[in-house]
């Protein structure tokens, strides 16, 4: 198992009307080759921002991202450095990320041409890639609007694959799709990770799909990772109250009238993060100390990391029940 990405203490800030907003606040994560790491959390918690910092679209204000042994630098308008072509991102919006006025084939071949491949050959390769993601070869000659959402997402995947990536950040790649295309595209990604021994960060707000396809899961809350562990650990025995809340809120499509549990309170705003544990205003288990002391990540006896005072480093996780 080879470590392909190392994210060390990464923070990212946006400028909002002259005020600094820290959307990602000190994230540590690693990704191995052949592994899918799910990244979950409510909207606005900083998932996309972290994804963009990993590939160099945004520059971190603290920390660094190391890809395959080299520090990721902020992308400039010019040519993407050779080494980082193998680090790719698939974007949340399959509509916005494709150019409506250029043929699909050219958009996929772009990366190959930039890397020095003759145009004819690059277009042939583009057709191969389209076939790989389950589209007809003649799609090279068509335009984005001639495809459905699921097909456009496949096109974005083909475009990312053109760079022969060793790591892909996939930002909500299936959220905008229908149930049946969701399953198709998720399967496609799983198989590609396997076939090319890539690492993938799979960003989603939907823990039930993440649970199916990931090896490990990282849970994010207001710019921070609050729990990281294997899928089994996270799903079967969540050790952070927020993870527990996310799981309890998922409806069951089983024909019982199971009522999912809501988590009252707003998804908080990074403009004014709460003191102490950032989750404390919504945490049903919060203690007095949680208002002032920020719990750092601690490694539990089963190997997972969690940031909550209810858990003790080195011990087995204490079962969390909310009510």
């Amino acid at each position, binding site marked *: 198992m080879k470590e392909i990405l190392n994210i060390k203490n990464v923070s990212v800030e946006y400028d909002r009307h002259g005020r600094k907003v820290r959307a990602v606040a000190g994230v540590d994560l690693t990704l191995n080759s052949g592994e*899918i790491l799910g990244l979950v959390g*409510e*909207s606005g918690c900083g998932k996309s921002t972290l994804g963009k910092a990993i590939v160099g679209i945004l520059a971190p204000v603290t920390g660094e991202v190391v890809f395959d042994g080299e520090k990721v630098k902020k992308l400039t308008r010019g040519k993407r450095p050779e080494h980082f072509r193998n680090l790719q991102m698939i974007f949340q919006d399959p509509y916005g990320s494709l150019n409506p006025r250029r043929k699909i084939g050219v958009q996929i071949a772009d990366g190959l041409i930039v890397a020095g491949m003759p145009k004819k050959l690059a277009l042939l390769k583009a057709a191969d890639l389209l076939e790989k993601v389950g589209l007809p070869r003649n799609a090279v000659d068509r335009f984005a609007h001639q495809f*459905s*959402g*699921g*097909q456009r997402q496949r096109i974005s995947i083909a475009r990312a694959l053109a760079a022969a990536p060793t790591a892909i950040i996939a930002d909500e790649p299936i959220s905008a799709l*229908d*149930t*049946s*295309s*969701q*399953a*198709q595209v*998720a*399967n496609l990604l*799983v*198989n590609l990770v396997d076939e090319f021994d890539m690492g993938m960060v799979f960003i989603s*707000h*939907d*823990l*039930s*799909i993440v*649970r*199916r*396809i990931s090896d490990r899961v990282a849970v994010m809350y207001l710019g921070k990772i609050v729990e990281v562990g294997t899928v089994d650990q996270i799903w079967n025995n969540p050790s952070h109250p927020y993870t527990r*809340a*996310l799981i309890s*809120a*998922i*409806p*069951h*499509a*089983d*024909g*019982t*009238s*199971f*009522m*999912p*549990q*809501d*988590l*009252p309170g*707003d*998804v908080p705003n990074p403009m004014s993060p709460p003191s102490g544990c950032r989750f404390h205003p919504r945490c049903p288990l919060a203690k007095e100390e949680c208002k002032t002391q920020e719990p750092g990540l601690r490694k539990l006896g089963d190997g997972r990391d969690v940031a909550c005072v209810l858990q003790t480093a080195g011990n087995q996780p204490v079962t969390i029940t909310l009510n």
Partner: protein
Amino acid sequence: MNLLTVENLTVTLATGSGDAQAVRNLSFNVGHGEILGVAGESGSGKTMTALSMLGLLPYKGKASGSIKFDGREILTSSKREYRDLRGKEIAMIFQDPMTSLHPMLTVEVQLTEHLRHHRKVSKDAARNSALELLATVKIPEPAAALRAHPSQFSGGMRQRIAIAMALACEPKLLIADEPTTALDVTVQAGILKLLHQLRKERNLSVMVITHDLGVLSSLTDRIMIMYAGSEVESGLTTDLLRNPRHPYTKGLIAALPGNSASNSKNLLSIDGMPPELGNFPTGCAFHTRCNYAKESCKGAIPEVTNLNSTHRIFCPINPFSEVTSAGSQS
């Protein structure tokens, strides 16, 4: 008697290449205080079905058949009659709550104008009703919320305000088109609870449209599944989700992340794509993707098969007729 009875509803839309039927011969009903769920892939005609209840079809769209609301035929209503019906008797909320809210006007202005328009009450009475409504939909600090603009609220709170608007004139039927699709699960759960409570307290009838079978499971009494503009299966929520009998429903349920074979990362999926408007396959429209299709499926439009008094499918082949155990998944 049912609150809503729809018979042979067909919706014809103008497309670039001529007229096409987006909804085909659809018949269903919603009882008083009942929550009906409508599910199906994108383009299956769910929204067009809803819009035809409100006389809000897109330009050049036409509906035929019959829609009886509270005993009256409404499909033949004039623009004016539809306007009175909307808001007062049938209200609708959308995936994007801002569809029914103005971003720059205060919640107070929007709610009270709406109340005064339909109910002809005094300003003070309207304000009091507005406060009550906000409390009903569980907006914290209703008085402060009245002074705010919708754009100052989070997505979940905006959807609550949109629901408050919809409830303002005490409609009998609420149509909710993907009301929680844009929300986080944590927030979605709160909206589901609220809809449940409204049904219970006000005997409100709800028609909820979503492709999320989990949402339907927790919210609805009955479900209708649509494909290419037609019903393929309907039944009580328990029956339909535990013992789906149409190949398409079966496929949708098998594709749920919780249902695929437990050791593989691969999900079961229905191959192929839903058909596009104007290009619906002949006979059973699902035949191009169905593993059980026979030659006969390409010819005649499927007749209904009643499995029991509430559960029916539109598939004469009925390939799972042997299956009787609950909760079975292929």
